[in-house]
């Protein structure tokens, strides 16, 4: 076993983790920052974000307006003090990225260009063609290289957090290239491990988005908050789930059913906007939860088309023209050609909803601090309280910058005050993991990782999909319980040390199962419909503020089952109102402001 001492550990090398590492390095160059990631940082899932990052930019826009859109978009489950802080700091963070070299798309006068995005009242989404996440990630990664105090541990997989008396002491990791156990002590630890979309069958996520960080915290008694809210992106490619960005609709793309009808006008998002004149918060620019739900309704009515056995609707971009598409949506043109053999300038792209984002995550306060001292969480793995029941597209890229910086600075401040926990105090925890690791080969060789994983993702798709009811969720939870038992005795099919991918997938599945349990249990407990959590059970199809204007907190019990507790929502200035889009929304906003 290798033993190392660092001041700060950042787990995860995506946008949030890199931003935090840079913030920590800038806060104090004398602190050693370990950036521990299971993949090379530039492979992280931030790379796949396409559309953009939101911040109030135009003179006709206002912080109140961004605040209103975010809180209403969250179906009033966002922490309003957090949203206030976020909208105030988003612009400066996007500028910071510009000053680090991010190639934001520009207007002719050389100023930064902003585009429309779903659920946003005004154009406020900064973008770099349709590869915004890619450019943000690479800018951050390349910038991080100039700080000598940031030491990278690429392809190290974190197994467990070291925790002593409710205070974090470091992490235990496996070095993928050698299979060695590595103990890294630290004074503060930041979790930035991304979401858990891979626990669902159809998703837009990278293979690495397996909920690791959420499970790490959950296993140490930290609550996962609002886990029932899982965002379906309305436009994934059939089969693979590969993401077709919302920016397509921001640019004026329209959604059609099999009859060529713009069905969204039937679901409170109308009236139909003229072709080539997209209107903010109307029709195709409604929020993601509403659009995905409309798909489900169309499917029930038999109005969706078929693409190789998958129900689909059609994203029509033809009227935008070849030149505009190549300039503004080059990646989309490439993806459509490669994966569904469609040229978007000539034919509509078949799309369907796919799991995209976990709104919930490791519960933190506004300073990104969890209930364990010195343990922070940021980005998709965290629930700082920004997204509530539904995230608005382009808020998450800004989120990881704003709160990445906060966590990095807080972690640095803490690391300067504290000392390492003694080796003795963490010896036993280390020994347990070491024993687990060497005893990893369970005895059951008749089962397989793939079988359990597929059963989990299918169960989640059926039980915790766009619409849910008590029976299907209970069935899903029962299945998860039995899958967990099967998992515990499952044999690891490769005994090697060097780059043992079977072992990593085994560990990821364990994390995924824990997170899936938290999602399903939280969903069962929320007996109302709100944002991305829509129930079909009688009497539960509407929002119920009297009982459920509360965050769900999922806490793991000794036996692995999940106990649900509730936490009040912080409301500062915007009392719960109706969430309306299209023409009705315009009327409503007039009243609110």
């Amino acid at each position, binding site marked *: 076993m290798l033993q190392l001492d660092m001041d700060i550990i950042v787990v995860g090398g995506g946008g949030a983790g890199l931003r935090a590492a840079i913030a920590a390095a800038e806060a104090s160059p004398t602190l050693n920052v370990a950036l521990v990631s299971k*993949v*090379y940082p*530039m*492979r*992280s*899932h931030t*790379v*796949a974000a396409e559309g953009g990052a939101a911040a109030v930019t135009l003179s006709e826009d206002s912080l109140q307006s961004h605040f209103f859109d975010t809180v209403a978009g969250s179906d009033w489950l966002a922490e309003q003090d957090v949203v206030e802080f976020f909208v105030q700091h988003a612009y*400066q963070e996007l*500028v910071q990225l*510009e*000053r*680090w*070299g991010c*190639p*934001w*798309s*520009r*207007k*002719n*006068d*050389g*100023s*930064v260009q902003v585009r429309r995005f779903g659920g946003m009242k005004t154009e406020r989404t900064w973008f770099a063609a349709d*590869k915004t996440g*890619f*450019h943000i990630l*690479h800018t951050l990664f*390349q*910038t991080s*290289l*100039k700080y000598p105090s940031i030491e990278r541990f*690429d392809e190290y997989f974190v197994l467990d957090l070291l925790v002593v008396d409710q205070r974090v002491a470091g992490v235990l990791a496996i070095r993928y290239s050698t299979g060695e156990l590595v103990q890294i002590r630290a004074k503060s630890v930041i979790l930035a491990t991304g979401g858990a979309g891979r626990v669902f069958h159809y998703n837009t996520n*990278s*293979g*690495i988005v397996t909920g690791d960080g959420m499970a790490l915290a959950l296993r140490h008694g930290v609550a996962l908050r609002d886990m029932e809210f899982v965002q379906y992106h309305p436009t994934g490619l059939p*089969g*693979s789930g*590969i*993401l077709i960005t919302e920016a397509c609709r921001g640019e004026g793309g329209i959604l059609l059913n099999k009859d060529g009808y713009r069905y969204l006008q039937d679901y409170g998002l109308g009236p139909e906007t003229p072709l080539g004149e997209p209107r903010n918060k109307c029709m195709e620019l409604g929020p993601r939860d509403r659009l995905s739900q409309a798909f489900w309704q169309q499917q029930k009515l038999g109005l969706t088309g078929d693409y*190789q056995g998958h129900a689909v609707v059609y994203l029509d971009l033809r009227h935008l023209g070849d030149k505009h598409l190549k300039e503004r949506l080059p*990646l989309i043109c*490439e*993806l459509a050609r*490669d*994966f*569904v*053999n469609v040229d978007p300038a000539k034919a509509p792209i078949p799309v369907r909803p796919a799991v995209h984002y976990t709104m919930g995550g490791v519960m933190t306060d506004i300073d990104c601090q969890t209930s364990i001292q010195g343990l922070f969480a940021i980005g998709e793995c965290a629930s700082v309280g920004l997204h509530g029941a539904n995230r608005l597209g382009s808020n998450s890229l800004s989120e990881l910058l704003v709160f990445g910086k906060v966590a990095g600075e807080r972690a640095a401040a803490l690391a300067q005050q504290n000392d390492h926990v003694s080796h003795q105090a963490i010896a036993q925890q280390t020994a347990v993991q070491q024993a687990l690791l060497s005893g990893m080969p369970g005895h059951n060789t008749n089962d*397989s*990782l*793939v079988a359990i994983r597929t059963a989990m993702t299918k169960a989640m798709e059926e039980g915790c999909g766009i619409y849910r009811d008590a029976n299907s969720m209970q069935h899903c939870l029962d299945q998860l319980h039995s899958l967990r038992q099967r998992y515990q005795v499952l044999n690891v*099919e*490769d005994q*090697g*040390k*060097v*780059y*043992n*991918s*079977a072992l990593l997938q085994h560990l990821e599945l364990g994390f995924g199962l824990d997170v899936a349990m938290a999602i399903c249990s939280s969903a069962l407990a929320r007996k109302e419909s709100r944002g991305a959590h829509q129930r079909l059970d009688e009497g539960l199809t509407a929002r119920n503020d009297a009982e459920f204007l509360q965050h769900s907190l999922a806490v793991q019990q000794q036996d692995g089952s999940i106990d649900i507790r509730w936490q009040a929502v912080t409301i500062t200035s915007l009392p719960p109102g109706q969430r309306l889009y299209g023409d009705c929304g315009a009327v409503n906003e007039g009243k609110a402001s």
Partner: protein
Amino acid sequence: MTQTIVIARYNPEQDEKPHHEAYQVQSDDNTSVLDALQQVQQQDPGLSFRWSCRMAICGSCGVMVNGVPKLGCQTFLRDYPAGLVITPLSNFAVEKDLIVNMEPFLEHLSAIKPWLINTAEGTQPHVQTPKQLAKYQQFANCINCGLCYSACPQFGLNPEFRGPAALALAHRYNLDSRDQGKAQRMPELNAKNGVWTCTFVGFCSEVCPKKVDPAAAINQGKVESAKDMIVSVLKPSGAR
């Protein structure tokens, strides 16, 4: 339908050197090399390879397909009716199966100072026109997949060569209207393993999945390097 693919296997804990093995996979019109590898992994969980995004943006899944560097997720079995042999990326050391040691690549990347160098403080964005952006934008699209290093015989002959992606990235920052760091990067470009090692074979640009054209970047870098060296000769010593 069923198709046969051949994969280079290497287990450092058992094998002296890599060997080829054939596998049967189910394929249709949309089956990518990555899909096929995942199918094989279900038959043989010991198979190791890198992958993540499935949409040709994370740069993880580079392999050689019939001797040509490709991204597994973006390469389709339908294009190889005569069969395909999948081997690890050339010019890198093989760690296990299709996983190669990418550390040399990262060292080269870091060496050219790939960040914006500009000491001015400010709270507003720089002004940069679409035209100024267009000058470097293509070279900013590199996903660090490393295919160009496997395509480059000069890197194969001399692993100290900074190589296509790193030199293209240096050029990207040198071309950025916001950057002031060219003087700091030029010594690395002028050096023995900098731009002049390139003989414009050009295969790097041919295999680049993002059309970055690193060969163009390096040879534009040669022009800059030549200018830089002429200037340094003409200037009186100490004036630099």
